[in-house]
């Protein structure tokens, strides 16, 4: 089983809830994997375990980047290994309402702007501008409070924060929730671009249409287990919905 050959994220015999069967999955570089399921059926728990935010009951998560393999045992380990996580509820778990756009962007990668221990504002602004352009963030000034931005642009700043970590695997927890349609399509393009550049993406979405549009493969969760793994042609709204409700497709 433990043949360390493939790069990417390897999940082995992961048990996410008592008396649920184990999950073994891999996320290859450049792949976009969707997570679907009715709310509370384990898909969010699974994603958080990949991010190191929750501890699994048993099993292991390993990330292979350029020949080295590291076990993910916690959030800090996950971040250090190259896993970035975009939380779901951006008001409760994402933004710092009293801080500026720039501070919100840089919080995960503060030390990268340090010159001899002191922050260089110019370096930080330069770093931010790269992502502002890439994600077409509409913000009046980088030093304006983040609360002056629209929901979609706040989300883009959070995505920029995660991308600034240069992750090998990006975990997205319902990234387009409460985001306007135009911004959604910008985000879809960005996700596709990231995958094309070799990043592995895991997207949890409450909208099946979104998963069908973006993902090559979807894991449908039911009662804290992967009830179905659907890919390619077989991936349709009907098949995903029937798996969500536990009916044979």
């Amino acid at each position: 089983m433990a043949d360390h050959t493939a790069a990417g994220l390897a999940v082995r015999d992961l048990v996410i809830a008592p008396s649920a069967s184990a999950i073994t999955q891999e996320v290859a570089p450049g792949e976009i994997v969707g997570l679907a399921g009715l709310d509370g059926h384990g898909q969010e728990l699974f994603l958080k375990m990949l991010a190191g935010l929750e501890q699994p009951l048993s099993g292991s998560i390993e990330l292979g980047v350029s020949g080295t393999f590291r076990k993910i045992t916690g959030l800090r380990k996950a971040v250090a290994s190259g896993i970035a996580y975009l939380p779901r509820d951006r008001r409760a778990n994402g933004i710092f309402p009293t801080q500026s756009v720039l501070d919100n962007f840089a919080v995960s990668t503060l030390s990268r702007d340090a010159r001899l221990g002191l922050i260089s504002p110019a370096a930080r602004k330069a770093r931010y501008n790269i992502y502002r352009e890439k994600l077409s963030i509409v913000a009046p000034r980088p030093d304006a409070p983040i609360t002056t931005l629209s929901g979609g642009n706040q989300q883009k700043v959070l995505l920029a924060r995660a991308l600034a970590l240069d992750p090998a695997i990006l975990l997205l927890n319902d990234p387009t929730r409460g985001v306007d349609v135009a911004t959604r399509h910008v985000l879809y393009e960005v996700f596709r671009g990231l995958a094309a550049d070799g990043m592995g993406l895991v997207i949890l979405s409450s909208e099946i249409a979104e998963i069908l549009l973006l993902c090559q493969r979807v894991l449908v969760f039911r009662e804290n287990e992967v009830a179905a793994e659907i890919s390619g042609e077989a991936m349709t709204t009907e098949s995903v919905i029937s798996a969500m409700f536990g009916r044979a497709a």
Partner: protein
Amino acid sequence: MSPLARLLSLGRSVGFAVVLLAVLLAVNLILSPARFQPGSWGALVGLAAPLIGAAIASTPVILAGRGGIDISVGPLMGFVNAVVIQMLFLKAGISSPLLLVPAALLIGALVGAANGFLATIVRIQPIVATLGTYLILTGVTLTILPAPIGPAPAWLKTLSGPLSMLPLALMFIAWWLVRRTPYHDQLMAVGSDDRAAYTAGVDVTRVRFIAYVMTGILGGCAGLMLTALIGSADPNIGPTYTLIAIAAVALGGVSLAGGRGGIAGAAIGAIDIFLLQSVLTTFNVSTFVLQIAYGAILVLAVMLTALQERLAMRGR
């Protein structure tokens, strides 16, 4: 950001405190021009310095949020005062600033670390943890020094007048350096929303612990400033600074919920309180009335700051 815009944004964050500062300064200049003539400003700064120092010291833990507060800053100042004069200067005969200053800062750091340990690692509510330290330090100070005693080393006494700007300037420079480090951004992020900070990979416990240590070090410095002003050791003065310092911090626009403000605001709040004290003493009112005035101004200031914030949010 241009210097002007920076000044404006500072004004917005400090808000009411700056307006109050201008008003109180004007009132003081009219009421007692002799006391407030330019030549005596140095002496006035000296009188206000320990309060400014105590307010600055109280700021870091408050910025760290989630009920972070250190009410042991006042007793810490008294403890440093007693240890430096009674134990080190009079008993052990140490008078060199090269030894006394590091000793005071070290005491502050240790007390801050103890507070930080209780509040962030044992996870006792900060107000309860530091209340414990408050009582312990007050008691220990009275044990070391049951009655006031003097004098202070000559070099320390010279820091009481215009030269009290020196420790204040050092505090500001130290904070200015902290502001430029990655730590400051983590501190503000933790104060703003600790769950979001955790999810973003910030070590919340470590950041808060360091905030307590910084408050302790700054408190040790404030204790030296108190020693300079009174030129002796007095076990009863230190604790009186605690609540007034926290009032000054709140007045200076530092949100007690964390993540908003800085030491400039806290210092302005402290100067406000000092000037208010000065106005009321020219009217010869009793100290009881003084307390009532502090309370009223504090509530008013916090209300106006909240109102100002709400208006600013609506404007967006």
